[in-house]
């Protein structure tokens, strides 16, 4: 159990530090890399929760596919470093109004988190203790295509719609 706790805190630290680095880096390429680091910490947490399938799929989709696209875009657009000279008070995000709205949103987020945590029963109990570990991919597939069929199909339609939208936007105009 002690080693479990040690692993949990290591992965949690990697996740949180990675996430903090994303917003604190000046160079956008480093931000992308920090996000990947954070995803790896998250994958470790999933493995600790006896969900290796979710962990690996998360790596494939987020760290593998989506972040490659992010990196591709950042490199292709050659986004400049956020230098102190440019990043001064004239920047729209540093105007008083933006700061105020940001502060309100941050407080709201903190309140929501606290509310959600206070309502979650049995926080101290590990998932593995309450139920026998269910990491069977076959079982996951069965549940996805029976109990959660509707959500699954709606998500598919949403993704197809956004894909069609992207194709339409990217298509060359025919004069």
């Amino acid at each position, binding site marked *: 159990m002690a080693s479990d706790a040690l692993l949990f805190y290591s992965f949690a630290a990697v996740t949180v530090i990675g996430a903090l680095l994303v917003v604190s880096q000046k160079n956008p*390429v480093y931000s992308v*890399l920090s996000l*990947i680091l954070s995803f790896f910490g998250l994958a470790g947490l999933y493995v600790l929760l006896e969900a*290796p*399938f979710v962990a*690996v*799929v998360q*790596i*494939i989709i987020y*760290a*593998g*596919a989506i972040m*490659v*696209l992010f*990196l*591709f875009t950042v*490199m*292709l657009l050659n986004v400049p470093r956020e230098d102190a000279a440019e990043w001064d008070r004239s920047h729209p995000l540093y105007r008083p109004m933006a700061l105020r709205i940001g502060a309100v949103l941050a407080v709201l987020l903190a309140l929501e988190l606290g509310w959600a945590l206070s309502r979650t029963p049995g926080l101290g109990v590990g998932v593995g203790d309450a139920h026998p570990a269910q*990491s069977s*991919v*076959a079982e996951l597939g069965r549940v996805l295509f029976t109990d959660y069929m509707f959500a699954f199909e709606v998500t598919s339609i949403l993704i197809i719609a956004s894909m069609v939208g992207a194709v339409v936007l990217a298509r060359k105009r025919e004069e």
Partner: protein
Amino acid sequence: MSDFIAFMTSPTTIAYLVIVNIVFIGLQLMAAVMVYAERKVAAFMQQRYGPYLVGPKGLLQPVADILKLFFKEELRPKAADAFLFSLAPIISVTAAYLAFAPIPFGAPTDFFGLLPEKIALQVSDVNVAVLVIFAVGSMGVYGIVLAGWASNSKYSLLGGLRSSAQMISYELAYGMALATVVMMAGSLSLREIVDAQQGYWFGFIPKWYIFPQAIGFVVFACAGIAETNRAPFDFPEAEQELVAGYHTEYSSMRFAMFFMAEYINMVTVSAVATNLYLGGWHGPFIPVEYGWIWFVIKLAFLLFVYLWLRWTLPRFRYDQLMSFGWKVLLPVATVNLILTATAVLYFGL
């Protein structure tokens, strides 16, 4: 503490450590052998001698190459991003080694009765092995992309961008090909997929998935070659267009790490193909305890095919590569997936 010592000195733990070392050192040796084989095969196909001065038949050539790379000067362009420039080859080579971890290379064995129980001949028996290989493979591209970006040179950057575009286009077909085999075997564990391929059809055709999945194998081979950046899909380092692509600015051991990663990736993709389509360690004549001999034979053949293709096929044009990936491989793989799904569902293959 005594528990720990007992655990560390138990025969099973030691056997696992041995296996880890076999894989680690074996992959390094395979990379060296592949460098030699590559030059010899190229020479054979071009009617030359190839390396023949260092050692008998030039067999010590890889050692000489490595020594040379060791003593070369480590160069870094002034405008390069120092941290990422050093990190990129490490990512490449780590991902390459990591991808071999879930691959079994022989039937479970007790090492001639030395162990109380049989253990699997693989570093770790993950129950989602196919997905792990896929995930780690998609990590390898970061090494190339970052090398291209951090070098701060236009050839490197173009190489890196091509690599990520190529990766995105071929990963889908690669995944579809993997999914078809997973469907037929009904498992994501490589050991179970291999075991599903033992036995014979009509008494003489081995039950290897290459026969029912010939189309899938071709898709897998194309995508695998594109994933490992080998000719005829070696765009990230196309010499005639991009000098040396993403590793233009690299020298010495950093270059050697990219080189090693490329060869280890070839070994990994061939090993995966052996397990998924060629029945892994199952084969006629050799008893299953010595199945790793079959595995090595099949692996060596696939690696030879890699070299064979490189020295016979010219490189595609870049736009041809992209349209081939999206307009040919992906639709073919998708139709193959749907047909296989139907067959598995209604005929229970």
